[in-house]
């Protein structure tokens, strides 16, 4: 299991379209993916779960990935969040 902290950088935060991109990305991997915020833990492969985080720009999240391809999964998710969901929003 790997854990990593990230900050949401895109303007509008984790609204519908970035959330959809995040779910799409993480669902490509076998590993389980969870997001922690304020003591809540949600399934990162569930768009409704991601939306209930209501994470705005600047929000700090902790990612947790657990499974056979966890390293690759974490890399991909971290990149997507780090570049502000560039592809999904352009």
């Amino acid at each position, binding site marked *: 299991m790997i854990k990593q902290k990230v900050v949401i950088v895109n*303007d*509008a*935060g984790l*609204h*519908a*379209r970035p*959330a*959809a991109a995040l*779910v*799409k990305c993480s669902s490509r991997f076998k590993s389980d993916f969870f997001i922690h915020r304020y003591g809540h833990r949600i*399934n990162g*492969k*569930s*768009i*409704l*779960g991601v*939306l*209930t985080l*209501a994470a*705005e*720009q600047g929000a700090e999240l902790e990612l947790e990935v657990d499974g056979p391809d966890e390293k690759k999964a974490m890399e991909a998710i971290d990149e997507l969040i780090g570049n502000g969901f560039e592809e*999904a929003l352009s």
Partner: protein
Amino acid sequence: MDLKKHYHRDMSEQEASTKEEVVIQGVPASPGMAIGKAYVYHKKTPEIEDGRIEEEEISAQIQIFLNARKHLKKQWQKLLAKEKTKQSKAILTAQIAIIDDPDLADQIKSNIKDKQYGAQQAIDKAFAKYIDKLSKTDNAMMADRLIDLSDIRDRLLEAAGTKSVPSFSKNVDILVSKEISPREVIQLSHQNIKGFIMEQGGNTSHAAIIARSVGIPAVVGAKGVMEQLKSEATVCLDGDRGLISINPSTQTRKRVEQLRGDDTHTLEEQLTICRQPSRTNDGTPFTIRANVEFPEELEKVQQFRAKGIGLLRTESVYLNQEQFGSVQKQTAFYEKMLAQTEDHPVVIRLFDVGGDKFQGTKISESNPYLGWRGIRMLLDERSILRDQLKAILITAGQHPGRIKLLVPMVSTVDEITEVKKEVKKCQQNLAGIGMAIDQDISIGIMVEIPSVAIGAASFADQVDFFSIGTNDLTQYLLAVDRGNALISKLYNQAHPAVWKLINHTVEVAQKNAIMVDVCGELAADPVAAACLLGMGVSSLSMSPIRIPGVKKLLLNRSADEMKELAKQVQLCVNVKEVEALFNKWEDNINHV
């Protein structure tokens, strides 16, 4: 939002004379004009069968849910396949992810298995949990999205066998509802709907975003419309200003008919017109730019080849502070506008808010149009002005020569001097921290107050350009509130007095060698546009959907004809003469 009720009788046309015109002010959500029959849609929550199920029914109920989900996903994918704009595709994709949500499915299944709810109740309860959570976040944007979720729930319930909610008939002209889901906007846009009116909701709702990106006029936040408007009644909507007219007078109808999108040409024909170089038939170049407020409109701006943005309205930035509260977010908004307009100019108008009409402040004024709005408000609220200038000037530093700053509601030269001081101070600060600035950024004023047009000479040497706002200029010059149905027939931008002021302003600009643009409705009327060019206006700016119609006429006429028209219009003594002249000119293609 105020609701005005006026009795209007138009003797010239019996048809419109029996019912009173009612005007409702809402929030503009997607530009353009529409007229048609209203369909007032009262959404009902589906009736759900409650009670527990027997154990042997569990697997059948789970199957009902799975089939419903499969059916729904197919429907959404069908819509997605037909969509052309990025925005609506992205929104539909996110919705499909909701339909497919693994946690949602687990909860529905567990509701059936463990709690022995029927499929319908299991679905309803699972959604209720999410809707409850989302409605508790203090993020206004999330709250705007609840309609997306309840729409998916209702369709899923329908597919799982609840009594079907009455759907709209195939031929809806104008859909009126408390809230409209993005799926409904997309579906109806495939069926030639003319416009949308929402009683609630904001202009950042998904429905509004999609309406803008597919170019269908919409007004949101129209309080009282569900009560005032009955299905089958005729309704006009003005998506540029957020006005709704129920039982419109002949005058209102005429105006809307004139300013409606071009529906006599197919999109392909419109694109062909727009691909041609902007030259009159004797080779004189002209410039058409677009009036823009939202990023979703940029696709149309590119499609119709506007030479940049002649008027970037920023009021929605001001009103949606939650999203644009920081300088950084504002900068990102301007940056987006510049990134998608090649190397063309972008004229950014400072916030034109203030007064209760403009919803921006809590101050109530007895006459807001003559009150504390535009630069008058900004100079009293310096921090708002400074934040906006900072965001604009940072963006300008990245794109030297492209941004022009437009100051609204200027009535004295001192106001310009103050703005220039603020610009200079802000640029010094930016340069001080090593940021790029556009040293020669153009600063211009809206010419919309009659005293400014008459005294244009005293402003001309203080500014780099004029932009004539014919909408407010007409209202102030003729002393007619266009939202007042009792007198709205007196409102006509082609009034000879308006032309006199435009002509004077253009002459002064030319004498001082500064640019003069027109960004009001007048520029969007093809013959008036020709007359403006004939008068010597530098560029015309209009709602993107108006570009093909205006450009078509300009391509087919000569600069000499336009000059002659501009001369003739000054001999007219009343609106009737102007209209007769314009009609004759339009019909007389081979004249000169």
